[in-house]
């Protein structure tokens, strides 16, 4: 009797774990209209997630940058044009994720850290592969995940569990790497750029001790991934499109915005890490030194006040029309008791800052108090 029960139990367990075999990848855009019922439900959930993101203001509105990213995606997967939609996601966390319905979300924080179009294509290629290979659906039909959904009461948690928001299994991530990489090469991008984006991210994860949900999941997996990309690239000839100039033209304003947002969310360590790194700093406009100065003030460690002053002075020299630097210099000299210099800087701020600058009234008050 116990044997019969044991066999029954074993068959149930085995059955629950072996249901992903009949899921076939999309071949082209027309395939996406032939969904199984349960897959359709997954798409419905994903559309709900899209709607929530859009109406709650989580989309970063930059038409030019969004069109640029979409263009790179269409170059990678021309047969899916109109079915894969790239959105900019208003978050400075280093992340990108794909939903089962072909929506790809790319965080502006990650966009700011990447150096060129080939590196961007490596990330986009990977995320789109999750959609085309139906990784969400494959993950959902496994019994293991089905039971996880039952206990979850978090909105969209079930979707998160089967989308790249929280990462896929190692096998599925590797498959997305391989498929994405093949597309990168086919689209004519320089394959030797692919690992560089991940190297920078790995460095940042380590330096900042990031434990949050993160692009391609945890640090050790990221290191394995870098090695895999290096091995693949070693078999390829050098050359191909890098697209540094085009990329930087589009992304430059987003980089400054990402620094501003990082500082506004007290992620000063991230600002310091970027702006102290000569490799990364070259991608950022000179106004970045202002944010570096503000980040030192936030950190408030030994000698940070002096470091902040130096950063502000560099910003003043390299970006003389960037108004916020003068307010910070004014505040520095006001605190140091140098009233005359403080007044000069505050007046310069008022001259350069826009008429509706939020902190004009404070600066006017400071000038009055310094007379």
């Amino acid at each position, binding site marked *: 009797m116990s044997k019969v029960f044991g066999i029954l139990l074993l068959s149930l367990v085995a059955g629950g774990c072996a249901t992903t075999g009949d899921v076939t990848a999309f071949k082209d855009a027309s395939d996406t209209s032939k969904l199984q019922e349960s897959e359709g439900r997954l798409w419905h959930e994903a559309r709900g997630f899209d709607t929530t993101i859009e109406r709650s203001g989580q989309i970063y509105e930059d038409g030019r940058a969004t069109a640029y990213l979409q263009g790179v995606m269409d170059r990678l997967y021309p047969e899916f044009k109109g079915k894969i939609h790239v959105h900019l996601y208003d978050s400075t966390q280093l992340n990108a994720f794909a939903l089962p319905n072909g929506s790809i979300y790319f965080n502006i924080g990650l966009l700011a850290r990447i150096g060129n179009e080939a590196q961007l294509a490596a990330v986009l290629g990977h995320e789109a592969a999750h959609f085309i290979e139906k990784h969400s659906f494959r993950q959902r039909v496994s019994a293991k995940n089905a039971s996880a959904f039952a206990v979850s009461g978090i909105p969209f948690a079930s979707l998160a569990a089967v989308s790249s928001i929280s990462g896929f299994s190692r096998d599925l991530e590797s498959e997305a790497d391989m498929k994405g990489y093949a597309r990168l090469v086919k689209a004519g991008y320089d394959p030797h750029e692919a690992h560089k984006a991940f190297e920078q991210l790995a460095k940042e994860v380590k330096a900042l001790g990031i434990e949050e949900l993160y692009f391609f999941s945890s640090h050790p997996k990221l290191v394995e991934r870098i090695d895999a990309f290096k091995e693949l690239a070693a078999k390829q000839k050098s050359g191909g499109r890098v697209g540094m100039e085009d990329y930087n033209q589009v992304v430059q304003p987003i980089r400054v915005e990402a620094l501003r947002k990082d500082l506004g*969310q007290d992620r000063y360590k991230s600002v310091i890490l970027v702006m102290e790194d000569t490799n990364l700093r070259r991608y950022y406009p000179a106004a970045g030194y202002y944010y570096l100065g503000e980040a030192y003030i936030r950190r408030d460690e030994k000698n940070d006040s002096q470091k902040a002053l130096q950063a502000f002075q560099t910003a003043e020299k390299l970006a003389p029309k960037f108004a916020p630097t003068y307010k910070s210099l004014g*505040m520095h000299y006001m605190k140091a008791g140098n009233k005359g210099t403080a007044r000069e800087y505050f007046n310069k701020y008022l001259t350069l800052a826009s008429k509706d600058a939020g902190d004009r*009234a*404070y600066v006017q008050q400071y000038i009055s108090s310094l007379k």
Partner: protein
Amino acid sequence: MMKKIFALPMLLALVGGCAPMPYWTLTDNDNRVLKSSSFEMSVPAGWTRTTTADTFEQIKVDEKPQTLLLEQVAASRDGLSIHAITVTRRYPDTAFPTIKKKSRANMLPLEAADLYVSELRKRYGLERLRVVSNKPAQINGKPGFELVMEFKNDDGLRIRIVSNGFVDKTGFYTINYRAPVLYFYDRDYNDYAKLVRSFRQSKGAFDPPPEIPGWAKLFT
């Protein structure tokens, strides 16, 4: 029998006497003072207000739960889920708890306002809090700030928060009003402004901080 009849009202009186004061009360012309040991102010008639101040809160700092001392009172006309006025005093060492910054008596109002915005952006749902305006203000004769901020909730409803705050040697004080921009914010802003004008610090503000109750620490 007589004894039993006598005992019953006695018991009721005792039980009634021991019953805790309701946490919320409806304000009228004789019942408008919203107070804590550190401050007090006048709530417009027709609002509900808390009768006692909360003295601690549990928050997550770096994903770890912590119990922090504070003083907090609240008032609302239509219900907390719709709109609310919240008045909070935080102690200097835990003035900006999630970003782990202390307040200093000589902190400039602009510095305090910037730190407060960063602090709020660490809270769930407020990551994309947008500053609409930030200007100097006077609260109880002390230099402070008036911040107006906005965010969209998951339903796409624009919620506005106006915050008047100041820092002194006893800590960081904020008087916040949160309401949907649609209909509610403008309707009750004047009531909020009156409440801000009536804000006064009490002598208790200068007492040493109390201990966190032992049972409250069980949560951390």
